[in-house]
């Protein structure tokens, strides 16, 4: 039992965080919006050059062969930066699905993206810039070139989320797999969303701490007022107790407990992000309510991700399924199978 990140994992997280701190500032986000382009081509090139799309791809297929923990760390950094490009869904959700279905990953690791139309989501994000879409026809998974679908734009409050209703027709040629793939994909999507929410929650706190330390009212920094401190302390407490849930959910092998914990991670990260973004708006005052300050990028992404890859209602129902039926106890924090073995041994 060792609940620590390895040095390699910490270095990966720092490297991605550093790269995004340099290339994805608030000013960069505003510039991208003003230019009307969906992606920053230079940043995406850098992301591809670092091999991030292949994080979860097997080494034999040209990927890094890393796991869900590494992907969660990358997703957290992307959430922190409010990254516009669809790295998280592509690398953390589409690529593992393609790999599991035995599809050649060449294009997906060298700059092209694949969008994911999971049945739990009413719309497909970033479908317009994708080369292909993963789509569901009842149980079956289809990989469909973008030119074979019709996209109907659905405007999201998040200016970087381009959502589409997809009109398409299933055909035997596009079918790549069945059922179980969608279940794993849902878990990967929910965990990736949770990790992004964690990152943007922390960014909201960090921006607010900086603003509150600087902004003066009543002759002192507003950050010296207890009410302001406590808003941010409350957000930080929620962050601290969402983080280990996300990491544990990522590090565990599949099991009913692991599934419940992924849902727990999504719920905890959503609550942390809501508390942190609302605290950020409140602490920034009218500034936090304006277009010119970065807070709104986080608020809007939080609003979207809270409901994507399973609403809170959906995930609470999944937690209920486990908690209201499975045996519970202080000895069952980790893998239930091992615990059962102990129970047998001790009996």
């Amino acid at each position: 039992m060792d609940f620590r990140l390895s040095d390699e994992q910490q270095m990966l997280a720092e490297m991605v965080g550093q790269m995004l701190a340099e290339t994805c500032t608030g000013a960069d986000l505003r510039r991208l919006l003003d230019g009307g382009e969906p992606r920053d081509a230079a940043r995406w090139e850098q992301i591809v050059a670092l091999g991030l799309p292949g994080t979860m791809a097997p080494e034999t297929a040209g990927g890094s062969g890393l796991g869900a923990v590494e992907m969660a760390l990358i997703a957290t950094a992307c959430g922190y930066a409010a990254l516009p490009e669809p790295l998280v869904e592509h690398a953390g959700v589409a690529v593992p699905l393609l790999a599991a279905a035995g599809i050649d990953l060449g294009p997906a690791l060298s700059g092209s993206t694949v969008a994911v139309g999971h049945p739990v989501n009413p719309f497909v994000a970033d479908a317009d810039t994708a080369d292909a879409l993963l789509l569901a026809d009842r149980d079956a998974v289809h990989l469909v070139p973008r030119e074979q679908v019709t996209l109907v734009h659905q405007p999201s409050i998040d200016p970087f989320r381009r959502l589409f209703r997809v009109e398409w027709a299933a055909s035997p040629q596009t079918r790549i797999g069945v059922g179980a793939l969608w279940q794993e994909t849902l878990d990967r999507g929910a965990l990736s969303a949770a990790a992004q929410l964690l990152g943007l929650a922390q960014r909201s706190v960090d921006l607010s701490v900086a603003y509150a330390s600087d902004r003066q009212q009543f002759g002192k920094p507003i950050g010296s007022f207890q009410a302001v401190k406590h808003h941010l302390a409350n957000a930080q407490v929620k962050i601290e107790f969402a983080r280990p849930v996300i990491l544990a959910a990522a590090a565990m092998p599949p099991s009913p407990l692991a599934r419940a914990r992924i849902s727990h991670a999504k719920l905890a990260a959503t609550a942390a992000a809501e508390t942190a973004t609302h605290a950020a708006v409140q602490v920034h005052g009218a500034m936090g309510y304006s277009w010119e300050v970065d807070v709104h990028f986080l608020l809007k992404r939080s609003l979207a991700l809270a409901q994507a890859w399973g609403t809170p209602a959906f995930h609470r129902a999944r937690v209920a399924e486990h908690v209201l039926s499975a045996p519970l106890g202080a000895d069952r924090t980790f893998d239930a199978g091992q615990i059962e073995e102990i129970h047998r041994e001790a009996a």
Partner: protein
Amino acid sequence: MDLRYTPAERAFRAEVRQWLSDHVPAEPFPDFDSSVEGFEAHRQWERTLHAGGWGMVTWPVEYGGRGLDLIRWLIFEEEYYRAGAPLRVNQNGIFLLGPTLIDYGTPEQKARFLPAMAAGDEIWAQAWSEPSAGSDLAGVRSTLGRDGDTYVLSGHKIWSSRAVHADWAFGLFREPGSERHKGLSLVFFPLDAAGVTVQPIARLDGKPVFAELFLDEVRVPVANRLGEEGQGWSVCMSTAGFERGLMLRSPARFQVAAAKLVELYRGRADSVEPEIRARVLQAWMDADAYALSIYATASRLMAGGTIGPETSTNKIFWSELDLDLHKTALAILGAEAELTGAAPDASVDIGDWLDGYIFSLAGPIYAGANEIQRNIIAERMLGMPR
């Protein structure tokens, strides 16, 4: 206590309802912040209201009102929101400055400003905040110099709502060298005066609902000062009382929103999680409690009472109920909640809940952040040490 409407009150309600039913436009106007067209449509509606005698029913007849009491005003507001009539583009004038003018203005000022305000001929913006004076309003730095019968105003105001299209603004200006609550005067200035630059500021969704105002030696008559020179702080606090208290945020507004939320929930009760029910019921109860509280305050004021720190409890209560109500609506909408509903080809109509949510986020901030209101309650209502 008698919680029955009198026959006269009931007749008044019937009259309001009839008039609104005859006049409220069938199609909503474009919003009044995003375009001149939207703004002018709302101004025209103010004129229509005024022509019907409904500009501000509580004001004296001579200034364009009907001289009615606050219970009648509440009834009017109930009917107004019930009818889905347009938002009042002149709310900074009629709900905030107007009542303060009636309390503090000279007869000349009242005659000059109130009728044009009631008629929608002059639409008002507020100019309270400055870059370094937000929650700490006594930190304003904009100055007023005197040149005979003329004031010379200079400074930088911010978060001025309606100022992009409005005609007039009111704000606090400081005698050079004065500090904090002293030396302030409340002064009106035309937004098209020489030396005024209006710079729109976008809200987080991009709508230009605020402006920055840069004042460079703007000359206005001394007669544009409300109240005594140097007594601007107490005049302003009176206005703030109207802002936080019963005038700006009609209970009817929240009751209509709560009823809409109940309707949204009824339509989806089978598909939302069970926890939502309590939140919907709480929204209805909170809107109801707010309405009852305002009826109690109105009754007290009508009997000669004054409004004190309870404006701070009102401010906290309505801003939090509004935020909770909209968060509940978004939870019901689920994965569709992020849609702005702005595109003509949107798959689903999610109403204007997202817009309402964004608006509600500002509630705990403006008119004095809720943290400040809690201080006021603790210190002035409960008597705790500063």
